């Protein structure tokens, strides 16, 4: 099962890809909920563009509000996908702040996507609800997301 790591943290992969016949499934683990959403935000960018070449030159914010953690994960990743596809912004780092009222604010650090400098890794059509899960366990938080490519 391939995994992608945080730079400088080889023992703690950012996310793992799991087998799904036609598409990309990712598994995320984090010690807390904010970190889980932060990792998800970085993961989708890393799947779109080779992350090592992306400079953290400017900040963008994305805010979502949802009735469940699954919906929040779905809506966040959809908004981030649109940020890349519509606004051409790509990021290499992020921070996330979830609130009790069901809102989540994510700050992204990145730059404008430049096909001359950045390596595009492949299109993501959509973030699916298929087997989507966000769960808290004794060890921390886990999420599974399948992306339609």
């Amino acid at each position, binding site marked *: *099962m*391939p995994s992608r790591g945080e730079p400088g943290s080889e023992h703690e992969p950012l996310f793992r*890809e*799991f*087998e*799904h*016949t*036609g*598409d*990309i499934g990712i598994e995320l683990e984090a010690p807390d909920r904010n970190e889980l959403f932060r990792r998800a935000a970085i993961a989708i960018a890393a799947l779109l563009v080779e992350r090592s070449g992306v400079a953290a030159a400017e900040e963008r914010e994305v805010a979502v509000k949802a009735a469940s953690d699954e919906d929040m994960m779905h809506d966040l990743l*959809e908004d981030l996908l*649109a940020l890349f*596809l*519509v606004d*051409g912004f790509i990021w290499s780092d992020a921070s996330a702040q979830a609130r009790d009222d069901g809102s989540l604010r994510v700050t992204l650090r990145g730059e404008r*996507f*430049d*096909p001359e400098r*950045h*390596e*595009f*890794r*492949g*299109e993501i*059509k*959509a*973030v*699916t*609800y*298929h087997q*989507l899960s966000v769960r808290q366990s004794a060890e921390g938080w886990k999420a599974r997301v*399948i992306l*339609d*490519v």
Partner: protein
Amino acid sequence: MELIKLSDHLWEIPRQGAMLVPGRVYASARMIEELRDDPALTQVANVACLPGIVGYSLAMPDIHWGYGFPIGGVAAVDAEEGVISPGGVGYDINCGVRLARTNLQFAEVEQKIPRLIDTLFARIPAGVGSEGAIPGLGEQELRKVVTEGAQWALRNGYATQRDLEHTEEGGRLAGADPNRISDRAYKRGSRQIGTLGSGNHFLELSRVDQIYDRRLADALGLDIGLVTILIHSGSRGLGHQTCDDYLKLVESAMARYEIRLPDRQLAAAPILSPEGQAYLGAMAAAANFAWCNRQVMMHLAERAFLEALSVSPRDLGFALVYDVCHNIAKFEEHVVDGRKRRVCVHRKGATRAFGPGHPALPEALRPHGQPVLIPGDMGRYSFVLVGLETAMRETFGSSCHGAGRVMSRSKAKSEARGRDLYAELKSMGVTVRAHTRSGVAEEMPSAYKDVAEVVQVMEAAGVTRCVARLKPFAVIKG
């Protein structure tokens, strides 16, 4: 999963639990053994729970695990009592395939393949981060595209009247409502007319290497050695966003209509409800975008041929054989339990395959049945079939759509590590260009089933007949 063998190529999942109709799976004995514990069969049973479903929840032999619906699934629901499910169409609304033929023999282009494929690669972008294939369109113009479909391409010099006649629905699905497409979907589609996309989308140059039915091949303009071009693409970001927008809307409405289904991704609303009607208007709009997209790509491909080969349009003889969609829901008339009924046929990874004489077919093709285009993997072959009368009786006029994957994308990438797939494909006689590094690895030939086995099942079942086989010699991956 309990399966009852009905014949060597047809299996039934008996009605149980909340299923309203039985499931039926077209597969060989070997395929069914591989499928027996596959979640795709559970999805066939789940689809059988859709309110208003009639006949059977069907699966074609290229079935694999999808979202809600299996890929390779066909479900017809009553046009008034039934539901429409965005998941039963899929994210890539009107993903489809078109085939064009030329007058050129493979021997005439063999020495010029690198120049030809490079010109095509430059003319037809993948569509992310690249300049569009044609100047970007504002929302006002895109509203015309989604209303008119391939007719927009005709008005703007990217199509001929004959092209439209050889496109399913004439390249324009009725009922499109541009007001049902979201701002975000318009923005995602604004620079994507004439672009290929990535994933399993491709442009393939092939030569006809087998003719199975001479009369039908003549009718479609296909002969041994002729160079053809196959394009697989869909509604791009506009369609993907539309599916996502309406999954949300439809799911939120389900409780109101007391619809309970075993899978969230199967979300459905009554066809006659405001939500159902809104989705149908948006789906038709996205389908029209896809037809326009494939038409413009084909036009750009013709220009690339003329430029790279320095031939006249007359000598090139570029002509559309047919264009099919394989992710769609359409209102059609079918005989169910001995009675003609208007139904909405969801085809998710399945191709319409109307038999000879069907009034929906263009006059030139009507006596022969509808061409059905079945791409295989990029190393082996693709097939041209036609629909038969049995399709009208057994499958709501539907057949398979492709090879179906046997290997996940991550497994394929891992298998490809350390290998030079470009060289391997070259040794198979296939020149490859790819817009992304991982595209070739994820789509390597061994990641797919042998498409010949898939089309043989449909032929044995009498649903479609093989007309010709196409052997790829150059491929562009998104």
